[in-house]
Structure formats: structure tokens, C-alpha cells
């Protein structure tokens, strides 16, 4: 939106009048645009159809009626509470790690990056089993936690841990990219002006990395909201305590489709809105933050 010099922002200058060369090359592809749309269509339909079907199958009246059912409200409450705690924990504990990975270079960095990425590709059920053998009653830390009086099994803490395990990588990766993209010269200039390291971080680096970190946090939250496999294995399923929306959908699907449909539609709307929000945030505030590594 701001009048950036087109020479630098070539990647996102589609909002402003594009430079000539870009215009021309686009014209060449433009001739085949219909072919490309045709080729892209099948997968797009495949992705959109199940979502559309869910929305079509659920009437708004029934949906609102189901919203007042105790099992539905309980699941929504558990989901909102646990994901909120998870995302605060992820941001607070994840920011130092993201900063380290984004700014510093050190031995073993690749290994740590791979470790951080791992939960995103693991089947959530594997995450659940892994959490069990680590923090379960007979897990590696289980006895020690038990001595401290912390009983993780079947508690909301277990739900938060499952969500944090699978969702944290999204925030860490995105925030790290944001930190890495902060202009070094700007940082050095601020240092010359006598900014201390905390002040530097808070007033220079954080505002610049903010859009990436924010989109990572929203992405992380959306992932935590959808977490299912690790939760049902590690935290169990009890309405009002550990039964989150995805668990209620799974259990509900087997008895009455209505509960499942209502919660599915709510989840889809929440996820869609948050992903949409990320797009807006990235396209408006940070025209060049992502992928400028």
C-alpha cells in the first residue's frame, strides 16, 4: 500500500503499477492462462468440495440449535481454553529459540532445525505415544513428575502438552524467518545509537519480525485447535476436561452426525478466518518479510 520503490519490492509490487519487463513476461504466460486454469481446476475442486459439502449438509438453524447443547459447548470451552494456554506458552518459550535459529549461526544448527521441524511431519499418534513414554506415569519423567505432585495423565495439562508438541514448530519456523529477515545494518545503526540488547530486541527487531511471528502464532494456534491424535492418546477423552472439539467430532460422528457437523463447521470457520487473517497480515504489513533469506 505504501509507495515502496518498485525496484526493491519486485516480488510484491503487483499492487502498484508493475514495471514494464514483468508486464511483458506476464503477457506471454497470459496466452496460456486458460490451459493453466483448466489443469488447476481438478485439485481445487477436490480440496473445496468436502468443505462445501460440510457447509451444505448443516442447516444454519440446526447449527445454532446444536450450539446450546452441553456436549458441544463443553468441547468448545475446552478447546478455547487449552489452545489459548498452548499458544501463550509457545510464543513465550518459542521466541528465544526462534531468535537463536534466525539470527545466530552455530554448530549443530541444522540438527536443531530438523528436530524442531520433526513434529510437523510425524503422525500425531506417534507424538501421542512419544509423549506417553516421556511424561506418562511410567514414562522417563513420569516418576519424577509424580514425586513433584504433578499428575499429567488425563489432565488438561496433557492436552496443552500435546497441542504444544505438534503446534510449536509452526511458530518457531515462521518467527525465525522473521528474525532472519531483519536488516543487519538497521540493527547496527541502532546499536551505534546506544540501544541496549533488550531495548534493541524490543524496539527494533521485534517490530520488524512481528508480522512473521504473528502469522506463525496464528498458524500454530490453528494447528493446536485441530490437534486430535496426540490428544486422544496422551490425554484421553473426557467431556468437559480433555475432550476438545476434534475429539468430540470423532466420538460424535459415531453416534449422531449432528454434533460432529456443528463442531466441524465451527472448526472450519475458525481455521479459515485465522488463515485468512495471516494472508492479510503478510500482504499488508510485511511486503518482503517472508522468504528473503
Amino acid at each position, binding site marked *: 500500500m505504501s509507495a515502496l520503490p518498485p525496484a526493491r519490492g519486485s516480488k510484491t509490487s503487483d499492487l502498484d503499477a508493475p514495471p514494464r519487463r514483468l508486464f511483458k513476461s506476464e503477457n506471454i504466460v497470459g496466452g496460456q492462462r486458460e490451459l493453466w486454469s483448466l489443469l488447476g481446476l481438478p485439485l481445487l475442486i477436490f480440496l473445496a468440495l468436502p468443505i462445501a459439502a460440510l457447509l451444505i449438509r448443516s442447516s444454519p438453524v440446526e447449527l445454532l440449535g446444536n450450539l446450546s447443547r452441553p456436549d458441544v459447548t463443553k468441547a468448545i470451552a475446552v478447546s478455547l481454553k487449552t489452545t489459548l494456554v498452548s499458544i501463550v506458552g509457545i510464543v513465550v518459550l518459542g521466541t528465544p529459540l526462534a531468535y537463536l535459529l534466525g539470527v545466530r549461526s552455530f554448530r549443530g544448527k541444522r540438527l536443531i532445525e530438523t528436530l524442531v521441524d520433526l513434529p510437523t511431519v510425524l503422525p500425531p499418534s506417534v507424538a501421542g505415544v512419544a509423549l506417553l513414554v516421556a511424561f506418562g506415569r511410567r514414562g522417563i519423567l513420569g516418576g519424577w513428575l509424580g514425586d513433584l505432585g504433578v499428575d499429567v*495423565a488425563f489432565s488438561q495439562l496433557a492436552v496443552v502438552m500435546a497441542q504444544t508438541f505438534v503446534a510449536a514448530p509452526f511458530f518457531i519456523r515462521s518467527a525465525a524467518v522473521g528474525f532472519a529477515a531483519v536488516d543487519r545494518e538497521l540493527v547496527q545503526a541502532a546499536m551505534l545509537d546506544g540501544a541496549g540488547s533488550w531495548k534493541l530486541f524490543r524496539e527494533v527487531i521485534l517490530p520488524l519480525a512481528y508480522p512473521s511471528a504473528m502469522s506463525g502464532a496464528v498458524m500454530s494456534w490453528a494447528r493446536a485447535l485441530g490437534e486430535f491424535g496426540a490428544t486422544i492418546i496422551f490425554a*484421553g477423552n473426557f467431556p468437559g476436561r480433555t475432550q476438545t472439539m476434534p475429539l468430540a467430532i470423532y466420538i460424535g460422528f459415531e*453416534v449422531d452426525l449432528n454434533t460432529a457437523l456443528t463442531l466441524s463447521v465451527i472448526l472450519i470457520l475458525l481455521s479459515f478466518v485465522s488463515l485468512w487473517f495471516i494472508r492479510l497480515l503478510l500482504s499488508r504489513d510485511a511486503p518482503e518479510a517472508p522468504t528473503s533469506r
Partner: protein
Amino acid sequence: MAAAACGPSSGGSAPGGEPVRLSVYAAASLVEVFGEIGQAFQETNPGVQVLFNFAGSQQLAQQIVLGANADVFASANPEQMEVLVDQGQAARQDVHVFATNHLVVVFPAPNPGLLMDLEDLARPGLKLVIAAPQVPAGAYALSFLEMAGESTEFGHEFRIAVLANVVSQEENVRAALSKVELGEADAGIVYASDAARASNVGTLDIPPEMNPTVTYPIAVLRQSSNASMAHAFVDFVRSPYAASILMRYGFTPVER
């Protein structure tokens, strides 16, 4: 005439050497026993391949209602079979009970909850897992507590106290057993057949008068494209040979 005569004999065997695939949807509690029965059936019927889909009965019934391509359905309770009969997916006269089962209480071998008898289930702070009420095993567990609550031996308070100890309603009976085997829970209510195959668990019996009889109905589905082979499989499950396998896995067989 000649063609009609050779029709039935070629009906079961596979044209061109391709195996006849029989899709059997069976309750989660039947995993091991049906695995073995299916193996035996394949050995006596060369050219037939039995493919199982194991899950909670209610989930399977939903899948079939929503159009899953199954030949045979074996349920852990009559209600889920009834769903399919009501929907016209199975004929009532085709539904047969082939086995019964009952509930037991299981606990991890070190017995962290110090369970000595059923009354201990009511002790405050004990961690008890059952299957979700939507799952047959969970519904049966609740009806056991119902019957115990009405009995003079245990009484109403027992039922309330036990229900307060439930920390998780697991998605199926095997998940409940796993939580006990892992030692995450102090006790669980599962089928005798599950307990019979479990390692490192102890069991407490539930008195027969308050122990719901779990019946397993099986039926060939109307939509089956291999109806004759599907009927052969159901007959096999109800045969004396399968009965011996069922018994070995902790079930009580019901023969034809």
C-alpha cells in the same frame, strides 16, 4: 443347460486367477480372533482373500450407512446391527449371534490402585478408564454400574463414586485396555476376551447377575457383490472349528 450347470461351481472361484475379495467389517474386540478365523477360512477356500476393517461397531455401522463397500458386518452389540437392519442394509433373518462375551475389571500388574475387590473401584482418586458411552463396551460398563447400583451388595453410592473416578472415555475398548497396560490408569472395564489376550494385567471378575451379556451378531449385507462367499464366511464363523478358536480367545461361542 451346460452353462447353467457349471455356473454355481465357477461362482465362488476366481476367473483368471484373481482372488475373490471379501470385505469384512468387524468390531475392534474381534481383531485377533477374526484374524485367525479369516486365515483358516482362506486356507479352506483357496482364491478367496478376506479383508478386515476393524473399528468400533458404531463407527463401522456409520461407515456402512454412509456407503462403505462391505460384504459382512460383525458387531459387538445388537444395537449397531439393528441400525443396519433398520436402514435396509441387512435382512433380519440373516442376522446370527455367533459369540458372547462379558466384562471384567483389569488393572496393571503392579496394581498401583491396590485393587483387591470390586468395592475398591469406588475409592476416591482411583483412575478408571472405560470406553466412551457411545461405544458398546462403554455402554455395557455403564449398565454394569447401573445394575450394581440397584443391588444390595453395592448400592447407589458405589455407582456414583465409581463414575466420579472415570478419568477417560476411550474411543474404543482396546484404547481403554492400552491405558491400563501402560499403567496410565489404575483400572479399566473391558471385555473378558481383551483381558485374556492382554499382557501384564490382572483381572477382577464381575458377578454374573450384574454382568451384561455381550452378544456378537454377524450378517451378510444386502449390498454384497459376493453374497455366496459372504454366506460361506458367516457359516464358517458359526462352525465348530471357529468355535474352538473363539474359545481360545476368551469368547463363548454360540454354534448353529
